[in-house]
């Protein structure tokens, strides 16, 4: 191996004017130029478009994330709001139910009282009527009895 390298070098330095491992010539600047041109071409074809695509996506993801976060916050706010409203509505409903119950209770009591009063009044008037009629009847009976008694006395007395 070494011998080949040495031979190659020896060939380059001693024998012929060209060849060898460290043979520097116009390849160097031309290669440099080629690489510079390649840099510009790749910048145009690769680095800029791909960079733009990647950064666009990163921007898109960032904005989407912030938007999603905003929407989430909004939804949470709305939810809290609605919960609050729901609670208030429940309280309201309970109040309404309570007042309605009280109302119906009151109405029931009132109606009951009125009915009872009516019942008592009509019973009272009926009793009074009955009493009056009984008294009437009794007085009639008394009168009839008296008359009958008088008649009997009249009949019996002349006969004896």
């Amino acid at each position, binding site marked *: 191996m070494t011998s080949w390298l040495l031979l190659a070098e020896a060939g380059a330095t001693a024998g012929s004017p060209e060849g060898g491992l460290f043979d520097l010539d116009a390849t160097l600047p031309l290669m440099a130029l080629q690489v510079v041109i*390649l840099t510009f071409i790749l910048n145009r074809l690769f680095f800029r478009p791909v960079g733009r695509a990647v950064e666009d996506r990163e921007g898109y993801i960032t904005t989407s994330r912030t938007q999603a976060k905003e929407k989430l916050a909004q939804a949470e706010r709305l939810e809290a709001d609605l919960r609050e409203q729901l609670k208030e509505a429940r309280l309201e409903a309970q109040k309404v139910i309570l007042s309605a119950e009280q109302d119906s209770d009151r109405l029931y009591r009132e109606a009951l009282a009125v009915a009872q009063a009516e019942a008592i009044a009509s019973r009272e008037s009926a009793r009074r009527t009955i009493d009056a009629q009984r008294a009437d009847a009794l007085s009639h009976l008394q009168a009839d009895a008296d008359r009958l008694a008088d008649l009997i006395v009249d009949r019996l007395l002349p006969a004896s």
Partner: protein
Amino acid sequence: MAPLPLALPFAALEVGHHLYWQLGHYKIHGQVFLSSWVVIAALLAVVVTGTRRLERDPRGIQNLLEFLWDYLRDIAREYIGEKAYRDWLPFIGTLFLFIFVSNWGGALIPWKVIHLPNGELGAPTSDINTTIALALLVSLAYFYAGLSRKGFRYFEYYVEPTPIMLPFKIVEDFTKPLSLSFRLFGNILADELVVAVLAFLVPLVVPLPVMFLGLFTSAIQALIFATLAAYYIGEAVHEEHH
């Protein structure tokens, strides 16, 4: 040219041989350019198919590309810092992708099938010219990054925290590209050579573990190169808090 000591019909080794193309007065290594064009074409093909329709829900290759982009962005952001990384992400990313695809291409594509008149195809990064070119680009990049961001205050960096550091920091400017280029070059060439030698000695099965190790090293080298480049740039743009 010294003749190779062994000329077997399979898996012959060629080191330091190049396919020369004449370009005016200058010579260039044709095999390096050929393989680098294949690598660049593969890279661009994947990128173009993957980014043809970018969607918010990634599908198919777009996933891969986004993963790569994310990975490279993390490297750049971690080492360069939040403020300046956007300017340098394409450079760091291109370094990583080019080196990575070069290394893996060198290991995975059966280059030996294509016969060249001289030299042989392989990873572009196993040629010292490529790695030095990349390393010098990194040097230029961090100087440019520092100067453009801080102006001449950039040179305060050389005397911080104490002026005693000045010579060391100047030496560092030379050792950074040297170590970058030779690390990459050495690793990739050594990997190719080890695989070639093992394949030369025992053509079956035995080179496989080394090949897997080579894939691992290749990926690591690309990561190291890109990370160090990012680190150097980050060091240059770093603001001291007084």
